[in-house]
C-alpha cells in the first residue's frame, strides 16, 4: 500500500524570471484597487447603519467619516474605484477580442492610469 507523502515539487518560475513590463503594473493595480475598495464599502454601510440607528450614533460615525482620516480614505477610494472602473472597461474591451496588440494595450493602460486621476479630481470638484 502506498502511503501518501508530501513531496517537494518544483514550482514553475513566476515573477522572478520576467522582465518588468508596463502591463504587469496595470494588471496588479486592478486587483489591488478592487480588493482595497472593501474598506470604503465597510465605511459606507457603517455610516448608513449609524444614520438609521440614532442621532448620537450618527454623530460618531459621521465624525469619523468627515475627519481628515476619513476624507483621506474617501479620496484614495475614489482613485481606486475610478482606476478599477477604467481597467474593468478595458478588460471588457479585451474580452470582446479588441485592442490586444502591444501598442494599443499599453496606450489603454495609460488611459486608465491618467484617466483615474482626472476622474478623481473631477469627482472631488463637483461632488
Amino acid at each position, binding site marked *: 500500500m502506498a502511503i501518501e507523502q508530501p513531496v517537494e515539487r518544483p514550482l514553475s518560475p513566476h515573477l522572478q524570471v520576467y522582465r518588468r513590463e508596463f502591463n504587469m503594473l496595470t494588471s496588479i493595480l486592478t486587483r489591488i484597487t478592487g480588493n482595497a475598495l472593501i474598506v470604503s*464599502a465597510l465605511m*459606507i454601510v457603517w*455610516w448608513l*447603519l449609524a*444614520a438609521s440607528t440614532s442621532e448620537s450614533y450618527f454623530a460618531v460615525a459621521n465624525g469619523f467619516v468627515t475627519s481628515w482620516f476619513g476624507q483621506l480614505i474617501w479620496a484614495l477610494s475614489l482613485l481606486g474605484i475610478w482606476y478599477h472602473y477604467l481597467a*474593468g472597461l478595458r478588460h471588457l474591451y479585451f474580452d470582446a477580442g479588441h485592442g490586444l496588440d502591444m501598442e494599443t494595450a499599453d496606450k489603454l493602460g495609460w488611459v486608465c492610469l491618467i484617466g483615474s486621476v482626472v476622474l478623481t479630481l473631477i469627482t472631488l470638484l463637483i*461632488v
Partner: protein
Amino acid sequence: MRYLTARKRAIGKGASGTGTEHHWQMQVSAVALAFLVPTFLIVMGRAIGQDHAGVLATFARPFPAILAGLTIFVSMIHFKKGAIMMIEDYWHGSLRKVLIMLVIGLSYSIIAVGLFALAKMAL
C-alpha cells in the same frame, strides 16, 4: 447508473470544472456597476457631509435608497467573486478554504447591514 458519458459530462467545463460561469457573472456585474457606480458616487458624495436630518431625508426618497441598495448588493457580489479569485491565486490548502469562507461571510454581511439600514431609513 450514469446515462451521460464521461466525455459528455466534461465537455465545455475546462480546468475549473464550472465552465465560463464565473467569468460571465463577473462581466454581467461589471456592466451593471459601470452604470450604477457613477450615479452612486454623486448620491453618496452629496449625502456625506449633511446633518442627520438631511441624510434621513435623502434615503427616504426612492431613487437614492434603491440605487444605494442595488449598488451595495451588486458590488458585494462582484467583490466576493473577485476576492475569491485572488485567494485562489495566492493561498492553498485549509487556509484558502477559511479565507474564502470569510470573504463570502463578509460580503453577505455587508449586503445585510446595508439593506437593513436603508430599509429602516426609507420606511
